[in-house]
């Protein structure tokens, strides 16, 4: 616009002329308040990229001693010995991935089913209440899920679910050993319940973003409701749905409280879901206050760094996929 120095806009011209005469207001003047406004907002907005950079840098700096000491072997060493000061994150990484995998196996069909039900098949009067109820699931805090997991889920698994599972599938490596309760399985199930509403909410938004013309074109060709969904809607939204699932994965990877209360917190790698296990987030929560030496602490920070990097990559990938279907909309930002 103009390059005059920044100063407050001049006071408006005199306002005393009677209202019957048109005022000849001056056309000249600068509006610095617009620039100040933009400046303030920009500074506030810059807090975000600054924050993520600061997070990463600090994690890296705090983890550096451990990185220097253990190198890449940190990623595949199974020993976690605070006494001998040897730390390896392999069991935690394994447990994180395994519990998330179990969670996805259970949650994805459920969540997609809910999303498809809500957008395509539910009668109008059912939609609002069910959507609301599913959203409520997302509002329940992690620690409450943990509480429920410890006192309701695990006893239930022990008494009613695991015996038949063992009877049928006990020959596989996945259901070996004695089930005491705290286990990879319990962690996976709790995670599944926690991420269902998240995947469902994002999937629903993705499906709603699919243009109605896709559905209608299929229906006009004589497809049944379900066929229209399967052949026209889902493929169109496929990228976004995969994105929703990956977002759910990202969520599961970072869940802490509920997991640490039911998973057993043991540095162990094993294929059996009935055995205790550990995740990166749970380990940090559990052991951070007990880290007496600098190396111990640094090792935990390195675990945090690995977790941070993995979740950032997973989330970034998911967002890109979703963005392709629902351009730039804040999809899932309200899905708690």
């Amino acid at each position, binding site marked *: *616009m*103009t390059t*005059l120095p920044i100063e407050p*806009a001049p*006071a*408006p011209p005199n*306002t005393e002329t009677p*209202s019957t005469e*048109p*005022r000849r*207001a*001056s*056309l*000249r*003047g*600068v*509006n610095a308040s617009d620039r100040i406004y933009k400046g303030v907002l920009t500074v506030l907005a810059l807090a975000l990229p600054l924050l993520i950079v600061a997070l990463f840098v600090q994690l890296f700096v705090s983890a550096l001693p451990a990185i220097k000491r253990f190198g890449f072997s940190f990623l595949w060493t199974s020993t976690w010995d605070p006494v001998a000061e040897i730390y390896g994150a392999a069991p935690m990484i394994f447990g994180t991935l395994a519990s998330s995998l179990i969670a996805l196996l259970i949650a994805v069909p459920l969540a997609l089913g809910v999303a498809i039900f809500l957008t395509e098949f539910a009668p109008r009067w059912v939609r609002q209440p069910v959507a609301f109820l599913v959203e409520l699931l997302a509002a329940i805090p992690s620690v409450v899920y943990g509480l429920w997991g410890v006192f309701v889920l695990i006893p239930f698994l022990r008494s009613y679910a695991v015996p038949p599972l063992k009877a049928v599938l006990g020959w596989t490596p996945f259901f070996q050993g004695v089930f005491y309760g705290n286990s990879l399985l319990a962690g996976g199930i709790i995670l599944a319940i926690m991420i269902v509403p998240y995947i469902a909410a994002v999937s629903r938004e993705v499906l709603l973003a699919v243009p109605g013309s896709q559905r209608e074109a299929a229906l006009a060709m004589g497809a049944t409701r379900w066929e229209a969904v399967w052949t026209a809607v889902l493929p169109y939204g496929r990228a976004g749905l995969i994105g929703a699932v990956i977002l759910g994965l990202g969520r599961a990877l970072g869940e802490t409280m509920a997991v640490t209360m039911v998973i057993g917190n043991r540095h162990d790698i094993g294929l059996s879901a009935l055995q205790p296990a550990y995740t990166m987030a749970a380990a940090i929560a559990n052991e951070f206050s007990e880290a007496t030496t600098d190396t111990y602490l640094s090792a935990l920070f390195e675990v945090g760094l690995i977790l941070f990097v993995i979740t950032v990559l997973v989330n970034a990938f998911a967002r890109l996929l979703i963005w392709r279907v629902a351009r730039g909309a804040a999809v899932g930002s309200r899905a708690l």
Partner: protein
Amino acid sequence: MAASANVRLRLETVRLTALFHRIAAVREVSILFPAHTVTAIIGPSGCGKSTFLRCLNRMHELSEGGWVTGKVLLDDVDIYASDVNPIQLRRRIGMVFQRPTPFPTMSIYDNVAAGLRVNGRRSRAELDEAVERALRQAALWDEIKDRLAASALELSGGQQQRLCIARALAPEPEILLLDEPTASLDPAGTQRIEELCQELKRLYTIVIVTHNLQQAARVSDDTAFFYMGRLIEVGRTRELFTKPQVEQTEAYITGRFG
């Protein structure tokens, strides 16, 4: 040109070209709008009439990629000069849009007063007077004088549009720009606003963009016909409609295209 030499000039464009990035939507338009007249701008969809109108109060540059060459002279001052503040300018030129846009969180009174409050502090008494005057000019006062504190959204479409007119009039601009103001109104509302145009020209200079030829014929003193971004012809309304000089004008007016 339509104006006779002794009518005081208010608004004039000189070879005005309006572009979006590299594409010209308005090309080399030179026209003058004599004071206290109603000028209608007609033309088929996409001919650039709205874009042209938005150049007159420097709204065009707020659009993505919008920029302008040429001049627009308001009282012989080029409004596109580098030391002109567009915000101050827009307080001298009022604009009403196609769809009524009352501010939803403000009452009727506050809507009308909005343009005044942003222009500097006024006492309550001054505001009351200005609001009443503007609402009377917009022929809305009698209908809503008892519910000035009510939400603007309680009004009907036609009333909302007249409210927007009142809002545009309250700061006492010299020019009033109307961009298809009756496009979303029913016939009764349309008629009220057309009557308004004739009354208001005593106080203001009015430029109205319309795609409705009959409306242009009813309402305006001068008419300008635009086509593909260019000004094809401008003249006294009666003459333009009965004896157009350019063939394209005649074709449009008689409905052969548009």
